[in-house]
Protein backbone atom coordinates (compact mmCIF):
# COMPACT_ATOMS: atom_id res chain seq x y z
CA UNK A 1 0.00 0.00 0.00
CA UNK A 2 2.99 2.24 0.56
CA UNK A 3 3.59 2.40 -3.17
CA UNK A 4 0.24 3.76 -4.36
CA UNK A 5 1.01 4.76 -7.93
CA UNK A 6 -1.03 7.73 -9.14
CA UNK A 7 0.74 7.80 -12.49
CA UNK A 8 -0.99 4.65 -13.70
CA UNK A 9 -4.28 6.53 -13.39
CA UNK A 10 -3.00 9.72 -15.01
CA UNK A 11 -1.25 7.92 -17.87
CA UNK A 12 -4.38 6.03 -18.80
CA UNK A 13 -6.85 8.82 -18.25
CA UNK A 14 -7.86 9.24 -21.92
CA UNK A 15 -8.64 5.51 -22.17
CA UNK A 16 -10.62 5.62 -18.94
CA UNK A 17 -12.59 8.67 -20.02
CA UNK A 18 -13.47 6.93 -23.26
CA UNK A 19 -14.89 4.12 -21.15
CA UNK A 20 -16.80 6.59 -19.02
CA UNK A 21 -18.26 8.10 -22.17
CA UNK A 22 -19.60 4.70 -23.21
CA UNK A 23 -21.15 4.24 -19.75
CA UNK A 24 -22.86 7.63 -19.95
CA UNK A 25 -24.10 7.18 -23.52
CA UNK A 26 -25.49 3.76 -22.67
CA UNK A 27 -27.20 5.23 -19.59
CA UNK A 28 -28.76 8.11 -21.53
CA UNK A 29 -30.04 5.93 -24.38
CA UNK A 30 -31.36 3.15 -22.16
CA UNK A 31 -33.00 5.69 -19.87
CA UNK A 32 -34.78 7.43 -22.74
CA UNK A 33 -35.91 4.19 -24.30
CA UNK A 34 -36.83 2.76 -20.90
CA UNK A 35 -39.00 5.74 -19.98
CA UNK A 36 -40.82 5.76 -23.33
CA UNK A 37 -41.46 2.02 -23.27
CA UNK A 38 -42.16 2.16 -19.53
CA UNK A 39 -44.86 4.81 -20.02
CA UNK A 40 -46.57 2.67 -22.65
CA UNK A 41 -46.35 -0.37 -20.37
CA UNK A 42 -47.76 1.58 -17.43
CA UNK A 43 -50.70 2.85 -19.51
CA UNK A 44 -51.31 -0.68 -20.78
CA UNK A 45 -51.11 -2.03 -17.24
CA UNK A 46 -53.77 0.45 -16.12
CA UNK A 47 -55.90 -0.07 -19.20
CA UNK A 48 -59.50 -1.19 -18.92
CA UNK A 49 -58.82 -3.75 -21.62
CA UNK A 50 -58.12 -6.82 -19.52
CA UNK A 51 -55.87 -8.72 -21.98
CA UNK A 52 -53.70 -5.63 -22.48
CA UNK A 53 -53.40 -5.06 -18.72
CA UNK A 54 -52.52 -8.71 -18.11
CA UNK A 55 -49.92 -8.77 -20.89
CA UNK A 56 -48.24 -5.63 -19.56
CA UNK A 57 -48.31 -7.04 -16.03
CA UNK A 58 -46.66 -10.24 -17.19
CA UNK A 59 -43.94 -8.35 -19.02
CA UNK A 60 -43.21 -6.22 -15.96
CA UNK A 61 -43.23 -9.08 -13.44
CA UNK A 62 -41.21 -11.32 -15.75
CA UNK A 63 -38.35 -8.88 -16.31
CA UNK A 64 -38.33 -7.87 -12.66
CA UNK A 65 -37.85 -11.49 -11.67
CA UNK A 66 -34.60 -11.88 -13.65
CA UNK A 67 -31.02 -10.89 -12.84
CA UNK A 68 -29.78 -8.18 -15.21
CA UNK A 69 -26.68 -10.25 -16.03
CA UNK A 70 -28.85 -13.06 -17.34
CA UNK A 71 -30.79 -10.60 -19.50
CA UNK A 72 -27.51 -9.23 -20.87
CA UNK A 73 -26.36 -12.76 -21.72
CA UNK A 74 -29.70 -13.47 -23.39
CA UNK A 75 -29.57 -10.52 -25.75
CA UNK A 76 -25.84 -10.81 -26.38
CA UNK A 77 -26.63 -14.29 -27.58
CA UNK A 78 -30.01 -13.64 -29.25
CA UNK A 79 -29.60 -10.41 -31.18
CA UNK A 80 -26.89 -11.64 -33.61
CA UNK A 81 -28.77 -14.92 -33.98
CA UNK A 82 -32.05 -13.20 -34.87
CA UNK A 83 -30.39 -10.71 -37.21
CA UNK A 84 -28.33 -13.48 -38.78
CA UNK A 85 -25.13 -11.45 -38.63
CA UNK A 86 -22.78 -10.26 -35.91
CA UNK A 87 -23.58 -6.81 -34.53
CA UNK A 88 -21.49 -4.86 -32.06
CA UNK A 89 -21.99 -5.86 -28.46
CA UNK A 90 -23.12 -2.31 -27.76
CA UNK A 91 -26.42 -2.73 -29.59
CA UNK A 92 -27.22 -6.06 -27.96
CA UNK A 93 -26.54 -4.58 -24.57
CA UNK A 94 -28.53 -1.43 -25.32
CA UNK A 95 -31.56 -3.50 -26.23
CA UNK A 96 -31.15 -5.59 -23.08
CA UNK A 97 -30.92 -2.53 -20.85
CA UNK A 98 -33.85 -0.76 -22.51
CA UNK A 99 -36.21 -3.72 -22.24
CA UNK A 100 -35.05 -4.50 -18.70
CA UNK A 101 -35.23 -0.93 -17.38
CA UNK A 102 -38.65 -0.40 -19.00
CA UNK A 103 -40.11 -2.87 -16.51
CA UNK A 104 -38.76 -0.84 -13.59
CA UNK A 105 -39.72 2.51 -15.10
CA UNK A 106 -43.21 1.16 -15.80
CA UNK A 107 -43.76 0.49 -12.10
CA UNK A 108 -42.53 3.96 -11.15
CA UNK A 109 -44.77 5.58 -13.76
CA UNK A 110 -47.74 3.45 -12.79
CA UNK A 111 -47.34 4.53 -9.18
CA UNK A 112 -47.14 8.14 -10.37
CA UNK A 113 -50.30 7.83 -12.42
CA UNK A 114 -52.28 6.15 -9.65
CA UNK A 115 -51.13 8.85 -7.23
CA UNK A 116 -53.20 11.30 -9.27
CA UNK A 117 -56.58 10.91 -7.64
CA UNK A 118 -59.62 9.35 -9.29
CA UNK A 119 -61.44 12.63 -8.70
CA UNK A 120 -59.09 14.38 -11.12
CA UNK A 121 -59.97 11.87 -13.82
CA UNK A 122 -63.68 12.25 -13.05
CA UNK A 123 -63.38 16.05 -13.24
CA UNK A 124 -61.62 15.90 -16.61
CA UNK A 125 -64.18 13.43 -17.93
CA UNK A 126 -67.03 15.59 -16.62
CA UNK A 127 -65.65 18.45 -18.74
CA UNK A 128 -65.98 16.25 -21.79
CA UNK A 129 -62.34 15.30 -22.22
CA UNK A 130 -61.58 12.01 -23.95
CA UNK A 131 -59.24 9.38 -22.46
CA UNK A 132 -56.30 10.71 -24.47
CA UNK A 133 -57.00 14.34 -23.53
CA UNK A 134 -57.39 13.39 -19.86
CA UNK A 135 -54.06 11.55 -19.85
CA UNK A 136 -52.25 14.20 -21.88
CA UNK A 137 -53.47 17.38 -20.17
CA UNK A 138 -54.44 16.31 -16.67
CA UNK A 139 -52.97 13.03 -15.43
CA UNK A 140 -49.51 12.70 -17.01
CA UNK A 141 -48.35 16.29 -16.28
CA UNK A 142 -49.18 15.81 -12.60
CA UNK A 143 -47.81 12.28 -12.53
CA UNK A 144 -44.49 13.20 -14.17
CA UNK A 145 -43.98 16.12 -11.81
CA UNK A 146 -44.34 13.75 -8.88
CA UNK A 147 -42.16 11.13 -10.56
CA UNK A 148 -39.21 13.17 -11.82
CA UNK A 149 -37.06 12.63 -8.72
CA UNK A 150 -37.79 8.88 -8.69
CA UNK A 151 -37.13 8.59 -12.42
CA UNK A 152 -33.79 10.37 -12.01
CA UNK A 153 -32.83 8.19 -9.04
CA UNK A 154 -33.58 5.16 -11.16
CA UNK A 155 -31.29 6.74 -13.77
CA UNK A 156 -28.46 6.80 -11.21
CA UNK A 157 -29.10 3.13 -10.46
CA UNK A 158 -29.08 2.45 -14.20
CA UNK A 159 -25.74 4.23 -14.53
CA UNK A 160 -24.31 1.95 -11.85
CA UNK A 161 -25.86 -1.07 -13.52
CA UNK A 162 -24.14 -0.32 -16.81
CA UNK A 163 -20.96 -1.57 -15.12
CA UNK A 164 -22.40 -5.07 -15.63
CA UNK A 165 -21.54 -4.93 -19.35
CA UNK A 166 -18.20 -6.13 -17.96
CA UNK A 167 -19.59 -9.68 -18.28
CA UNK A 168 -19.61 -9.41 -22.08
CA UNK A 169 -16.38 -7.44 -22.27
CA UNK A 170 -17.83 -4.18 -23.53
CA UNK A 171 -15.33 -1.41 -22.71
CA UNK A 172 -17.29 0.79 -20.35
CA UNK A 173 -15.58 2.71 -17.55
CA UNK A 174 -15.24 -0.22 -15.14
CA UNK A 175 -14.10 -2.71 -17.78
CA UNK A 176 -11.50 -0.21 -18.99
CA UNK A 177 -10.23 0.19 -15.45
CA UNK A 178 -10.12 -3.56 -15.01
CA UNK A 179 -8.19 -4.03 -18.27
CA UNK A 180 -5.50 -1.60 -17.15
CA UNK A 181 -5.52 -3.03 -13.64
CA UNK A 182 -4.67 -6.52 -14.82
CA UNK A 183 -2.36 -5.43 -17.64
CA UNK A 184 -0.21 -3.22 -15.40
CA UNK A 185 -0.76 -5.23 -12.21
CA UNK A 186 -2.16 -2.13 -10.53
CA UNK A 187 -5.36 -3.55 -9.07
CA UNK A 188 -5.40 -1.47 -5.89
CA UNK A 189 -4.96 1.86 -7.66
CA UNK A 190 -7.37 1.22 -10.48
CA UNK A 191 -10.23 -0.24 -8.45
CA UNK A 192 -9.98 2.39 -5.73
CA UNK A 193 -9.99 5.06 -8.42
CA UNK A 194 -13.01 3.48 -10.09
CA UNK A 195 -14.85 3.31 -6.77
CA UNK A 196 -14.00 6.94 -5.97
CA UNK A 197 -15.16 8.16 -9.36
CA UNK A 198 -18.48 6.33 -9.15
CA UNK A 199 -18.94 7.59 -5.59
CA UNK A 200 -18.33 11.22 -6.54
CA UNK A 201 -20.54 11.10 -9.65
CA UNK A 202 -23.43 9.22 -8.10
CA UNK A 203 -23.32 11.10 -4.80
CA UNK A 204 -23.35 14.50 -6.56
CA UNK A 205 -26.15 13.37 -8.83
CA UNK A 206 -28.24 12.10 -5.92
CA UNK A 207 -27.69 15.38 -4.04
CA UNK A 208 -28.86 17.19 -7.17
CA UNK A 209 -31.99 15.08 -7.26
CA UNK A 210 -32.61 15.82 -3.58
CA UNK A 211 -32.32 19.55 -4.26
CA UNK A 212 -34.71 19.30 -7.19
CA UNK A 213 -37.15 17.31 -5.08
CA UNK A 214 -37.18 20.05 -2.46
CA UNK A 215 -37.83 22.70 -5.11
CA UNK A 216 -40.62 20.68 -6.71
CA UNK A 217 -42.23 20.15 -3.33
CA UNK A 218 -42.70 23.89 -2.91
Amino acid at each position, binding site marked *: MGDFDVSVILDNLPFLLQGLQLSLVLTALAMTGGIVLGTLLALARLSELKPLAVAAGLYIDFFRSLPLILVIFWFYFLVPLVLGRPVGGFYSVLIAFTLFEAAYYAEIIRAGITSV*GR*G*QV*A*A*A*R*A*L*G*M*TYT*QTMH*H*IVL*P*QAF*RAMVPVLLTQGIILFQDTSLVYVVGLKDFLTSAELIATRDQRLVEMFLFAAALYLVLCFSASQGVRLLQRRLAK
Partner: protein
Amino acid sequence: MIVFDRVSKWYGAFQALNQCSTHVDRGEVVVVCGPSGSGKSTLIKCVNGLEPYQAGSLTVDGIEVGGRKTDRPRLRARIGMVFQNFELFPHLTALTNICIAQEQVLKRPPDEARHKALTLLERVGLIDHANKHPSQLSGGQQQRVAIARALAMDPMAMLFDEPTSALDPEMITEVLDVMVALAKEGMTMMVVTHEMGFARKVADRVIFMDDGRIIEDSQTDAFFGKPRSERAELFLSKILSH
Protein backbone atom coordinates in the same frame (compact mmCIF):
# COMPACT_ATOMS: atom_id res chain seq x y z
CA MET B 1 -84.54 17.62 -19.76
CA ILE B 2 -83.10 14.90 -17.49
CA VAL B 3 -85.34 11.86 -17.25
CA PHE B 4 -84.70 8.80 -15.07
CA ASP B 5 -86.83 5.78 -15.81
CA ARG B 6 -86.40 2.86 -13.40
CA VAL B 7 -82.61 3.24 -13.29
CA SER B 8 -80.79 0.50 -11.35
CA LYS B 9 -77.13 0.03 -10.61
CA TRP B 10 -75.13 -2.68 -8.89
CA TYR B 11 -71.59 -2.80 -7.52
CA GLY B 12 -71.07 -6.55 -7.70
CA ALA B 13 -73.86 -7.96 -5.56
CA PHE B 14 -74.60 -4.64 -3.83
CA GLN B 15 -77.45 -2.69 -5.34
CA ALA B 16 -76.58 1.02 -5.27
CA LEU B 17 -79.62 2.29 -7.18
CA ASN B 18 -82.97 0.56 -7.14
CA GLN B 19 -85.51 1.45 -9.84
CA CYS B 20 -85.04 5.21 -9.59
CA SER B 21 -87.48 7.30 -11.60
CA THR B 22 -87.60 11.09 -11.60
CA HIS B 23 -86.99 14.06 -13.86
CA VAL B 24 -85.47 17.51 -13.93
CA ASP B 25 -87.15 19.92 -16.32
CA ARG B 26 -85.57 22.83 -18.10
CA GLY B 27 -84.94 25.70 -15.67
CA GLU B 28 -85.81 23.56 -12.67
CA VAL B 29 -83.69 23.29 -9.51
CA VAL B 30 -83.89 19.90 -7.84
CA VAL B 31 -82.18 19.11 -4.53
CA VAL B 32 -81.31 15.51 -3.70
CA CYS B 33 -80.80 14.64 -0.04
CA GLY B 34 -80.59 11.56 2.13
CA PRO B 35 -78.29 9.78 4.58
CA SER B 36 -74.74 8.85 3.54
CA GLY B 37 -74.62 5.73 1.43
CA SER B 38 -78.18 6.28 0.22
CA GLY B 39 -77.04 6.50 -3.41
CA LYS B 40 -77.53 10.23 -4.03
CA SER B 41 -73.98 10.80 -5.33
CA THR B 42 -74.25 7.72 -7.50
CA LEU B 43 -77.54 8.98 -8.90
CA ILE B 44 -76.12 12.34 -9.92
CA LYS B 45 -72.96 10.77 -11.40
CA CYS B 46 -75.13 8.65 -13.67
CA VAL B 47 -76.44 11.79 -15.34
CA ASN B 48 -73.13 12.50 -17.11
CA GLY B 49 -72.11 8.87 -17.35
CA LEU B 50 -69.34 8.97 -14.76
CA GLU B 51 -71.12 5.99 -13.22
CA PRO B 52 -72.64 3.44 -15.59
CA TYR B 53 -76.07 1.96 -14.77
CA GLN B 54 -77.15 -1.53 -15.65
CA ALA B 55 -80.91 -1.31 -15.99
CA GLY B 56 -83.53 1.28 -16.87
CA SER B 57 -83.19 4.34 -19.02
CA LEU B 58 -81.67 7.76 -18.39
CA THR B 59 -81.89 10.46 -21.02
CA VAL B 60 -80.49 13.96 -21.10
CA ASP B 61 -81.99 16.22 -23.74
CA GLY B 62 -83.36 13.11 -25.38
CA ILE B 63 -80.00 11.28 -25.53
CA GLU B 64 -79.70 7.93 -23.74
CA VAL B 65 -76.65 8.41 -21.47
CA GLY B 66 -75.69 4.75 -21.33
CA GLY B 67 -76.43 4.16 -25.00
CA ARG B 68 -73.90 2.06 -26.83
CA LYS B 69 -73.47 4.69 -29.53
CA THR B 70 -73.68 7.75 -27.29
CA ASP B 71 -70.70 10.07 -27.57
CA ARG B 72 -70.25 10.51 -23.84
CA PRO B 73 -67.38 13.06 -23.96
CA ARG B 74 -69.60 15.24 -26.13
CA LEU B 75 -72.57 14.84 -23.84
CA ARG B 76 -70.45 15.62 -20.76
CA ALA B 77 -69.15 18.77 -22.39
CA ARG B 78 -72.75 20.05 -22.33
CA ILE B 79 -73.36 19.21 -18.65
CA GLY B 80 -71.41 21.01 -15.94
CA MET B 81 -70.36 19.21 -12.79
CA VAL B 82 -69.06 20.48 -9.46
CA PHE B 83 -67.39 18.01 -7.09
CA GLN B 84 -67.27 17.68 -3.34
CA ASN B 85 -63.47 18.00 -3.32
CA PHE B 86 -63.36 20.72 -6.02
CA GLU B 87 -60.97 18.67 -8.19
CA LEU B 88 -59.30 21.69 -9.69
CA PHE B 89 -56.22 20.62 -11.62
CA PRO B 90 -53.34 21.41 -9.22
CA HIS B 91 -50.72 21.90 -11.95
CA LEU B 92 -52.71 24.66 -13.65
CA THR B 93 -53.60 28.20 -12.53
CA ALA B 94 -57.20 29.18 -11.81
CA LEU B 95 -57.36 30.78 -15.24
CA THR B 96 -55.97 27.79 -17.17
CA ASN B 97 -58.21 25.47 -15.18
CA ILE B 98 -61.12 27.33 -16.75
CA CYS B 99 -59.54 27.53 -20.22
CA ILE B 100 -58.24 24.03 -20.78
CA ALA B 101 -61.49 22.23 -21.61
CA GLN B 102 -62.79 25.19 -23.62
CA GLU B 103 -59.71 24.92 -25.80
CA GLN B 104 -59.23 21.16 -25.89
CA VAL B 105 -62.84 20.01 -25.94
CA LEU B 106 -64.80 22.88 -27.48
CA LYS B 107 -61.83 23.94 -29.65
CA ARG B 108 -62.37 27.58 -28.78
CA PRO B 109 -59.52 29.90 -29.77
CA PRO B 110 -57.29 30.72 -26.75
CA ASP B 111 -58.27 34.40 -26.78
CA GLU B 112 -61.94 33.64 -26.63
CA ALA B 113 -61.45 31.03 -23.90
CA ARG B 114 -59.41 33.46 -21.86
CA HIS B 115 -61.96 36.20 -22.23
CA LYS B 116 -64.72 33.86 -21.14
CA ALA B 117 -62.65 32.66 -18.17
CA LEU B 118 -61.93 36.18 -16.99
CA THR B 119 -65.58 37.17 -17.26
CA LEU B 120 -66.58 34.19 -15.13
CA LEU B 121 -63.82 34.80 -12.58
CA GLU B 122 -65.12 38.35 -12.28
CA ARG B 123 -68.58 36.99 -11.73
CA VAL B 124 -67.55 34.63 -8.91
CA GLY B 125 -65.49 37.45 -7.41
CA LEU B 126 -62.04 35.98 -8.01
CA ILE B 127 -60.63 38.08 -10.82
CA ASP B 128 -57.63 39.01 -8.64
CA HIS B 129 -56.74 35.35 -8.19
CA ALA B 130 -56.66 34.38 -11.88
CA ASN B 131 -52.99 33.45 -11.92
CA LYS B 132 -52.86 31.59 -8.63
CA HIS B 133 -52.58 27.83 -8.36
CA PRO B 134 -55.33 25.93 -6.53
CA SER B 135 -53.07 25.29 -3.51
CA GLN B 136 -52.85 29.07 -3.00
CA LEU B 137 -56.63 29.44 -2.74
CA SER B 138 -58.99 28.72 0.15
CA GLY B 139 -61.53 25.93 -0.15
CA GLY B 140 -64.35 28.34 -0.83
CA GLN B 141 -62.34 30.11 -3.51
CA GLN B 142 -61.39 26.80 -5.13
CA GLN B 143 -65.00 25.74 -5.30
CA ARG B 144 -65.99 29.04 -6.90
CA VAL B 145 -63.27 28.53 -9.53
CA ALA B 146 -64.63 25.02 -10.08
CA ILE B 147 -68.10 26.43 -10.68
CA ALA B 148 -66.65 28.95 -13.14
CA ARG B 149 -64.81 26.11 -14.87
CA ALA B 150 -68.06 24.21 -15.36
CA LEU B 151 -69.97 27.34 -16.50
CA ALA B 152 -67.31 28.15 -19.09
CA MET B 153 -68.57 25.24 -21.16
CA ASP B 154 -71.99 26.94 -21.52
CA PRO B 155 -73.71 23.90 -20.06
CA MET B 156 -77.41 23.18 -20.51
CA ALA B 157 -77.53 21.85 -16.94
CA MET B 158 -75.35 21.85 -13.83
CA LEU B 159 -74.75 18.97 -11.46
CA PHE B 160 -73.52 19.67 -7.92
CA ASP B 161 -72.23 16.75 -5.85
CA GLU B 162 -72.17 17.92 -2.21
CA PRO B 163 -70.44 21.18 -3.21
CA THR B 164 -70.16 22.55 0.33
CA SER B 165 -69.58 19.49 2.49
CA ALA B 166 -65.76 19.68 2.31
CA LEU B 167 -65.75 23.36 3.25
CA ASP B 168 -65.11 25.09 6.55
CA PRO B 169 -68.38 26.61 7.84
CA GLU B 170 -67.37 30.23 7.17
CA MET B 171 -66.81 29.48 3.48
CA ILE B 172 -70.10 27.76 2.78
CA THR B 173 -72.05 30.97 2.24
CA GLU B 174 -69.79 32.36 -0.48
CA VAL B 175 -70.32 29.20 -2.52
CA LEU B 176 -74.05 29.02 -1.87
CA ASP B 177 -74.43 32.66 -2.91
CA VAL B 178 -73.00 31.84 -6.32
CA MET B 179 -75.33 28.87 -6.62
CA VAL B 180 -78.39 30.86 -5.59
CA ALA B 181 -77.60 33.52 -8.20
CA LEU B 182 -77.24 30.80 -10.80
CA ALA B 183 -80.59 29.27 -9.86
CA LYS B 184 -82.31 32.64 -10.08
CA GLU B 185 -80.97 33.10 -13.60
CA GLY B 186 -82.87 30.02 -14.62
CA MET B 187 -80.06 27.44 -14.82
CA THR B 188 -81.22 23.84 -14.75
CA MET B 189 -79.63 22.36 -11.63
CA MET B 190 -79.46 19.05 -9.84
CA VAL B 191 -77.86 19.48 -6.43
CA VAL B 192 -76.87 16.83 -3.91
CA THR B 193 -76.62 18.69 -0.60
CA HIS B 194 -77.54 18.77 3.05
CA GLU B 195 -77.97 22.53 2.98
CA MET B 196 -81.70 22.66 3.67
CA GLY B 197 -81.66 26.47 3.78
CA PHE B 198 -80.53 26.45 0.17
CA ALA B 199 -83.21 23.92 -0.73
CA ARG B 200 -85.95 26.03 0.89
CA LYS B 201 -84.77 29.16 -0.85
CA VAL B 202 -84.33 28.06 -4.46
CA ALA B 203 -85.33 24.43 -5.00
CA ASP B 204 -88.43 23.66 -7.01
CA ARG B 205 -88.46 20.05 -5.84
CA VAL B 206 -86.70 17.95 -3.23
CA ILE B 207 -85.85 14.28 -3.67
CA PHE B 208 -85.20 12.15 -0.62
CA MET B 209 -83.22 8.93 -1.09
CA ASP B 210 -82.50 5.99 1.16
CA ASP B 211 -81.04 2.56 0.43
CA GLY B 212 -80.68 3.30 -3.28
CA ARG B 213 -84.36 4.18 -3.66
CA ILE B 214 -86.13 7.45 -4.24
CA ILE B 215 -88.43 7.58 -1.22
CA GLU B 216 -89.87 11.03 -1.72
CA ASP B 217 -90.07 13.35 -4.70
CA SER B 218 -92.18 16.40 -3.93
CA GLN B 219 -92.55 20.14 -4.32
CA THR B 220 -90.28 22.00 -1.92
CA ASP B 221 -93.11 23.46 0.15
CA ALA B 222 -94.79 20.09 0.47
CA PHE B 223 -91.51 18.42 1.46
CA PHE B 224 -90.78 20.84 4.28
CA GLY B 225 -94.45 21.04 5.25
CA LYS B 226 -94.97 17.41 6.05
CA PRO B 227 -92.82 14.68 4.53
CA ARG B 228 -94.87 11.61 3.96
CA SER B 229 -92.29 9.02 4.85
CA GLU B 230 -91.06 8.22 8.31
CA ARG B 231 -87.49 7.99 7.16
CA ALA B 232 -87.50 11.44 5.59
CA GLU B 233 -89.04 12.80 8.78
CA LEU B 234 -86.29 11.20 10.86
CA PHE B 235 -83.57 12.44 8.52
CA LEU B 236 -84.90 15.99 8.55
CA SER B 237 -85.24 16.04 12.33
CA LYS B 238 -81.58 15.01 12.61
CA ILE B 239 -80.13 17.60 10.28
CA LEU B 240 -82.46 20.44 11.22
CA SER B 241 -82.31 19.94 14.99
CA HIS B 242 -79.57 22.52 15.47
